[in-house]
């Protein structure tokens, strides 16, 4: 990997980790656990725009690992992050290769299936099908957060396009 590429990818990784940390400081007072903005996904969208899906997967996985190392540990929170990341990445890649949507479609799919991945993991851990009933609220919040992160990412990318990093 060339040095320039490695530095750029490291920057995007750092942005993802930092956004994750900043978001964790927001005092969400929603009644349903799991409702959040998902700002860290912005870094994944930036990587996917400029680089190959391989880098997108690699940086996303590294972000989950580093967040676990720095903040959340390797318990249930790590499992939830990993499962959410895994399912959303899989669907994003399927969409990317087949349908080729815009940033909005990719972000929406990523947000929706991130929530679904986490719910499925909690269902598996507690053997509780009833957890699926959290999905309607999470579907709504994920759709909104998907559009917001896509909008922010598109604004950033339009400016980055004009700049040589």
């Amino acid at each position, binding site marked *: 990997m060339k040095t320039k590429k490695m530095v750029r990818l490291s920057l995007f990784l750092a942005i993802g980790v930092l956004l994750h940390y900043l978001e964790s400081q927001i*005092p*969400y*007072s*929603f*009644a*349903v*656990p799991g409702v959040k903005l998902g700002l860290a996904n912005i870094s994944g969208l930036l990587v*996917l*725009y*400029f*680089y190959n899906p391989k880098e997108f997967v690699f940086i996303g996985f590294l972000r989950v690992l580093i967040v676990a190392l720095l903040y959340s540990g390797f318990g*249930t*929170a790590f499992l*939830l992050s990993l499962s959410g990341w895994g399912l959303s990445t899989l*669907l994003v890649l399927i*969409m*990317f290769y087949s*349908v*080729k*949507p*815009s*940033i*909005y*479609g*990719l972000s*929406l*799919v990523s947000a*929706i*299936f991130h929530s*679904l991945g986490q719910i499925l993991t*909690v*269902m*598996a*851990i*507690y*053997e*509780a*099908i*009833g*957890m*699926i*009933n959290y*999905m*309607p609220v999470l*579907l709504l919040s994920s*759709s909104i957060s998907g559009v917001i992160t896509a909008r922010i990412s*598109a604004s950033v*990318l*339009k400016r980055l*396009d004009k700049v040589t990093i």
Partner: protein
Amino acid sequence: MSRNYSLTFSSKDVTISCIAIILIVALIISSNIFMHNYQSGSKVVNVYINRKLYDEYSIYLDDLKENEEKTIILKKEKHQVLLDDMEIKVNKNKGIKITKETSPRNICSQQPWINTPGVPLVCLPNQVYVVIESTSIDEPIPLE
């Protein structure tokens, strides 16, 4: 550097999102149909700590009077996995709610009253799971 996708919203995005939402709604509906088959008989509030059912905390809703409320107290001295003592209120009409707990930003106690059998209250930081179940089942609902 390449530019791998468009930054402009298109009709494809709406189609994909609608398909995703329809699939997930279908999953929710089929799960509830599956759960409904298990929801006969009397209702009991069960408390699971670290995936293990603790019978001593079980409360049968039929034994409660209208609007009667009972409190389940989980002590950290007894359950080391808890971050601190926890309180769960059980109301015959309103259902179940976690009212006192220690977790990041007290997220567990922000969940509303749950009155639907099978829909759980989950407090992952404390590894606690509270659910109204039917007495016609002896084990947690299997996923297969």
